[in-house]
């Protein structure tokens, strides 16, 4: 008996060009519907419900749009929601790879098994994982849902051990995560190749506090930057230089 292949994930949004989703690269962003977190500061709350009513973008249309622009694109970023919720994610990644483009995955790290499979297959060139706080009960508040902390930790370890490119995004949730806790998050990510600290959406605490965190804990990681201040790298690799130089794609 031949098992039926999993359905391809529903595409809810397509950003034809982005310069911010993968720093230093021109990418298209594919957004998938559904997330297992309900973060209070979610930048795309419309993607959170796993049952969607307002329709999707046909996969053929999305791939055709990407194909037509493939000479301008370095990669495609698959984001959500939470992409690893979809069983057909691997197939989607392979379809994009067939266009000759690399793939970056944006994940919240709650499903390390799926992440391991993708990394093992070598289909994903880069993973960006969002870490919303220290791995303690605060995390459930920060993501607005019950969360298996061991799974998040496993994902972090998986990425740290993986030879591929990765990036940890650490948003600062005001009134939920304190400054000391932010430092402990960075210590947990020790050995990471790149960490991006994201300020609170309302600007409080501001960039200065975030820079203090980066300055104190930055040496644990290779590269530590504050979103909005890309020229300043507080990581160990950058050392005392104010401007880091990165290799081109």
């Amino acid at each position, binding site marked *: 008996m031949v098992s039926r292949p999993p359905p391809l994930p529903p595409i809810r949004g397509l950003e*034809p060009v*982005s310069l*911010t989703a993968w*720093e230093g690269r021109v990418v298209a962003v594919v957004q998938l519907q559904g997330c297992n977190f309900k973060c209070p500061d979610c930048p795309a709350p419309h993607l959170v419900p796993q049952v969607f009513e307002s329709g999707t973008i046909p996969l053929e249309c999305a791939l055709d749009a990407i194909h037509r*622009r493939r*000479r301008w694109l370095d990669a495609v970023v698959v984001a959500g929601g939470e992409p690893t919720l979809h069983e057909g994610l691997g197939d989607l990644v392979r379809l994009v790879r067939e266009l000759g483009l690399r793939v970056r995955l944006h994940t919240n790290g709650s499903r390390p098994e799926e992440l391991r499979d993708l990394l093992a297959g070598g289909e994903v060139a880069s993973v960006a994982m969002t870490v919303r706080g220290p791995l303690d009960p605060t995390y459930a508040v920060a993501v607005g849902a019950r969360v298996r902390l061991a799974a998040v930790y496993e994902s972090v370890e998986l990425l740290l051990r993986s030879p591929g490119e990765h990036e940890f995004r650490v948003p600062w949730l005001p009134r939920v995560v304190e400054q000391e806790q932010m430092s402990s998050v960075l210590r947990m990510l020790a050995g990471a190749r790149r960490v991006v600290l994201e300020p609170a959406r309302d600007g409080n605490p501001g960039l200065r506090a975030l820079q203090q965190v980066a300055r104190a804990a930055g040496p644990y990681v290779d590269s530590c930057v504050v979103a909005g201040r*890309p020229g300043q790298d507080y990581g160990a690799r950058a050392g005392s230089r104010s401007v880091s*130089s*990165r290799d*081109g794609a």
Partner: protein
Amino acid sequence: MRRIALIRLRDGETVPFEQQRIRDAIERALLAAGTENRTLAVEIASVVELFLEKTFSDEVPSTAQVEDMVEKVLMDTGHAAAAKAFILHRDRRGRLRDAREARETRFQPTLFDHRVVVVDDGAEGRSAAFSRERLARTMAADGTVTRAVADDVAAGVESRLRKAGVARAPASLVRSLAEVELLARDVPLDLRRRGGAVLPAERLAAALYRKGTGGPAAPGGAPFPAVAATELGGAALRSHALGELLPAEVARAHLDGDLHVHGLELPAALYSAALRPGDVAAGTAPGCAARAPGDAARSARRLTASLGRAARFVGAAVTHDVAVIDVPRSYAPLLVEADREAIQEEAWHLLLETSADVGGRRLALDLTPVLPHAPSSAAEPHDARVAHDVRGDAPDRAAGAAAAFSAAVLRAHARREGLPPPDLLPVPTVTVSDRVLESPAARDVLRLAAEAVLRGSSVVFPLERETGRGRGDARHGPPAAGASGARPRGACAGRITLNLARLARRAGRDRVEGFLRACDRLVDVAALGHSARREILAQVAAASGGCLAPLLRGPRGRAPLYDLAEATWSFGITGLNEAVQLLSGFELHDGDETVSRLARRIVSYVALRVKAAGAAGDFVATLDADEDPAVARRLFAMDRSEAPAAMAERFPGRDAFSPGVTVRADAPIDLLARVEREEPLHANLSHATLRLALPAAEAGGPDGIVALLRKLLRAGSAVRVEVTTW
């Protein structure tokens, strides 16, 4: 004895004699003397009339003679006090009359007699009596009319002036009257070419007092008198160039809006030029007082001062763009030993010295870092020193100093501390090439340029590909032939822009072949204009002490800075988006591949025609995108005045064409779609700029901008990219 019937007034007119007026005058005199007696006044007036009848029986007495008689009778009849009052009154009236006459005759002609008509020549600042002979001689000297006709016309002009009764006339009026007389005699003459450079009073007032929107555009909005003078002088020269210098066909096409001739306000100037600090060191740049080559480049500070002066000299002989190129390469050997603070100081001075003057044009400052082992085409002594430093003993140190200097200039440009306003600072340009992207130091400079963009500066990134078009085309704006060669560089000598939208409107929907034929004709007209301009420039260059002599003739036996024979002549195009819309019904951004193909076909066809026109006219012709919004606005206005209904229907709410080959500015498309539509068109253009405006938050930081530039370099045909953020 005959009664007095008439009296002659002072102006010679005779009027009826009125005894009542004499009675009144005597009564007032008696009253002034203290005697109020009307009967006595009547009696004395009768005596005066009697004596007048006796004295002037055969002639008409004058007013003065009547008054003399009143005085005499008053004295003889014993009314001395009344006589005195009358005499005083008469004297006061006389002085008032003299003063009034003096005031009224103050502006009357004084050169000759009162019949002379004075002609005021405001442009020359002098007046002269109208001379029929001189006017006839001038007209005959033109060779357009015979002497007999000229004499006839001059007589007609004088007759008109006399009939009008004017005492003074402006020279422009005399010229106009001469044209009317010529027209009346059916003389085959293009009247527009006879017109002088006359500016309407409203235009002058607008420039001087900044009335309306026609005032001079000065930074900060202050009404600088020098800016007004430049603008008004340019307007007069533009009028002269259209009337006298350019062929009538070209002038007519410009005035009608079929094309736009650039630089009419400075007919004897180049369009654009590039200058190297090495030119200063070699002594070929103007304005450098160094006695021997190299004197001006003994220190970075000296080089900066001389470079600023040379740039101002070149800027005075160029109507549009002046680029200072190879800056880091020239400064590198002078800064190898300098510490960080000294380099920052020199960078600040360079920005200060190369900033534009009020109302002037901004320079382009090439800050592309020196690449180790870069093949150097320089053969001049100064560049040879640099090349030695870069390739010889200390390549890393020289390249490092060059990169540090570029970075310092970009940082100072972004900070702007102690520098002129941003709209006067030079525009940084940093070339993007594979070798720049591969070199860590050069890439850091590129990232700094991107950071400057994120801080609000406008930076131009020429794209230099390993194969394909040469370095000189892409890097330094309007093409400067042989820009990196040892021989004298050329410059872009002139530009004439074709109004593609006008031709498309006249051709009509789907009539592409007719449109292309119209392009043929317009290219020929533009070539005619370039040929005429070339003759003007050749004359100016050949003239000893002419304004272009310092640039086109080497000082003190040295090689000239530019060679007119190698200068390029630019054919600009504008309004391609609207031309495509008029031909196909779709704009560049909303059509399918057919529309893109049509746009590419138009550009490649015109490029071919331009090349052929250059070959036929024996000059180097280039096809460029004219991105000047003022030109696009002017040509749109001309079209609107020619066909208001059609233009309003096709382009509602618009006031300008899309400049050059760009997609409409407010087109509802994303960044890549804009790039996809515009950059293929650059393949056939020598100079075009892809303008990308990004939201600062979505620019992805300097790395995002660098990534975009890298993609454009490797995947597209774009020549130059200008990135701004908002």
